[in-house]
């Protein structure tokens, strides 16, 4: 019996050790919630807003930055406006595009039309791209979203923006997603969605890369907080490094969410 107890205690100790390390020894990253389709009225959008929507999709739902980043997994797209015409003349080009806009559309739905050297699937001699069709199930962009991404790529890649804003309701027009598209209801939900606690000490989370926000309302007013969310580089808090906070919250948050968060932070005293 004593051996049984000893062995049980030892096993529990080991399990406890692994459990403790997993909970307290490594950063607790909250995975992003499943993407929801948003209902947007494209008719009321300016081209700048449409480009910003493309940027949001590029960085979010489109999952483009998983590969198109400085890690070298896929070609960078910051000069796509210049390189696209050259690629269309390349002997290896298998597509039918005649303009940068068509080339970008083709690359998004038929990525193997032109594979940049060194970025093809292993063993295919750069004839097959590892990139999926972005209109397919995994990413599932619709035509309006596709157009927004193309507008964003043209704008950020040094090309003239030729895409027209589709005369239709964009993302999720046909989906029963009205409820999903509703703004978040509480500041805690906003904090959780935008993972503020990964860097800041706030709402019971212990992030340490950014300033402690548990009593931020004591020293900062709403204007300051609003600016910090919309343009984090405008003022860098004393003792902290710039370039750490994403500059895209202004595009990602709904106005109601932004104001709710600003009020919440201002009230932390």
């Amino acid at each position: 019996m004593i051996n049984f107890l000893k062995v049980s205690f030892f096993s529990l100790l080991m399990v406890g050790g692994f459990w403790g390390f997993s909970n307290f020894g490594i950063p607790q990253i909250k995975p992003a919630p499943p993407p929801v389709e948003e209902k947007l009225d494209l008719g009321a959008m300016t081209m700048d807003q449409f480009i910003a929507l493309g940027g949001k999709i590029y960085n979010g739902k489109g999952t483009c930055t998983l590969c198109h980043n400085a890690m070298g997994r896929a070609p960078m797209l910051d000069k796509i406006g210049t390189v696209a015409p050259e690629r269309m003349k390349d002997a290896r080009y298998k597509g039918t595009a005649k303009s940068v806009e068509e080339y970008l559309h083709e690359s998004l739905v038929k990525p193997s039309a032109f594979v940049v050297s060194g970025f093809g699937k292993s063993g295919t001699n750069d004839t097959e791209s590892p990139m999926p069709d972005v209109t397919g199930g995994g990413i599932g962009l619709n035509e309006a979203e596709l157009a927004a991404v193309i507008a964003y790529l043209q704008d950020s890649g040094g090309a003239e923006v030729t895409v027209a804003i589709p005369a239709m309701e964009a993302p999720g027009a046909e989906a029963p997603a009205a409820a999903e598209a509703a703004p978040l209801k509480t500041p805690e939900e906003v904090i959780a969605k935008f993972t503020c606690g990964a860097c800041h000490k706030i709402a019971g989370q212990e992030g340490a890369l950014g300033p402690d926000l548990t009593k931020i309302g004591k020293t900062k007013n709403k204007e300051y907080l609003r600016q910090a969310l919309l343009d984090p580089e405008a003022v860098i808090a004393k003792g902290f490094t710039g370039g750490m906070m994403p500059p895209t919250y202004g595009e990602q948050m709904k106005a109601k969410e932004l104001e709710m968060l600003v009020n919440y932070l201002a009230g932390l005293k």
Partner: protein
Amino acid sequence: MFMLPAFTPVANASEAAAPAAAAPAAAEAAAPAAAAEAAPAAAAVVYPPAPKLTEADYPTIKGVNARVAVWLVAQLHLWFGAFVVAVPMFVFIIESIGMMTRDERYDNMAYEFIKVSITAYSLTAILGGLLSFSLVLFYPDLFKYLALIFKESMFAYALLFFAESAVLYIYYYGWHWLQGGNKKWVHLTFGLLLNAVGVLLMFLANAWTTFMMSPAAVDAAGVFNGNTWEAIHNFLWNPINIHRVVANVAYGGSIVGAYAAFKFLSARNNEERAHYDWVGYNANFIAIAALLPLPFAGYYLTAEMYAYSQQMGITLMGGVFAWIFIIQAVLIGALFLSANYYLWCGMGRSEGAYRYNPRIKYIAIVLVAAFLVWFTPHTLVLTNSELKSLGGPYHAYLGVFGIMPAKNTAVNFLLTFTFMSFMFYRRANKVATVSWATTGNAAQIALFTVGLINIVILGVYYGYFTNTVYKVAASIPQVLTTLIIIIVSTVIDTFMYKGAKDVAPLHWGRMSTRSQYALFLLAVSFTWLMGLMGYVRSGIRQHWHVSNIFRDASPDAYTPGLGYAANIVSIGTIIFMAMVIFVFWLSTISGKHVVAKGYWKEQA
């Protein structure tokens, strides 16, 4: 058995679309003209697309979290399943060794192992049934969709399960009946058959699991093309099959090792202690033998995930799951350190081991260093002041250990030095008598030296001074180098120690109590590790029941965080270990005979 939800694929598209009342008339009118085409038309079954669900489509039971329930039951089923599939593999080998060497100890050990697994087999079946019920209950549409595609293989699975049970019972209950001469051959044949059926069962279940990760034979909307084999033989099926076979053997070895350790600690005399020490040694040997190729099988599986979907691969290694590989490093570090520690303790059984004892500390240093390299995260989580003093999230010196080339090098060192531990253990009690022993030793030293230098060059030069393509590609020659060291060295050793002299009889049972806890650590770490990696394998589907074609719309569609997963895995491990101890206890009481004097009526 349970009843499947009632559904039948429609015979063809027109049948599905035709209003019921019009159907007889239309069929009658079309009959003469269509007579010749009737057969092929009837055969062309059109399947529905994957359903688009809403939260309301998921039944709930008050107080029960569907995901946690299915998660725990599936994981428990998998732990027991892995054990009962693995045990007959090495039981078959041990029985064969006993038959060839005519050493009855092997036969007895094999019988003892299968005795332990027989109760586990019942628990596997019970948990399998519970898992099916849970799926039907909580995820009826998913089960219905999978059953639509895999109905034939599910039916075959049920039939094979009967076959497995029959063969297992004959194999176990016929053990002492089928002894000696040709009967032993018959018994071994049943053992082989048992393994064949067991592995086939696992492969079938793997097909359903991997279909959910890398669906095949379906279009983008999830419409099945009717080719069952294509659905089974999906992209990740074979990589998972290979990984699970190897991992199961290592896992099975670790569990019977824990059994032997438990019996060793409870032994009442030296004879029992010696027996269970020997059993524990063999179990640890099985676990290590399968543990050595396991990282390669895992690497192959991961590479195939990348090949299937770069997105899936990046989610696995660079997204939310990236930190899990630091936990994995801790667990695998625990596995290797405990397995090596047990081997080093085991050298105490031999009078000749003192020759190798001074070298053990260097092996220990290398193992710990390799573990620490593996353990070093790519990006450090720092406070702001630490971040400033470091000048970024990467440490100036330790930062280089955070990337894959360093970890690949570390893993290959871990494997090579574990093999070295094992080689020293095997040699401890022997003195080679062949004339070329000095040359053989020199060749082995040269092999290890050149091999390890090659691993370092491949890791450092190709890992840090060339482009990304070579970084990943260099891991393959690294692995091959390790395999060459292990295989060539084993061949040299086998010939060099043929007919070797024993230094002295081995003292089985001369083992410290601490060494037995190393076997427990092995079993617990393995169990927890399997649970953790199960979470990752399932989690990389993210919010999809079937990747990219069948979306999960349940309230639990989000991917749980690591801490939450660790809670579930820990609870599962505790339940599993409790059930395993129960199995061990059952195998102990099954051999006990209590004489109840005065209880039974005296017979004239």
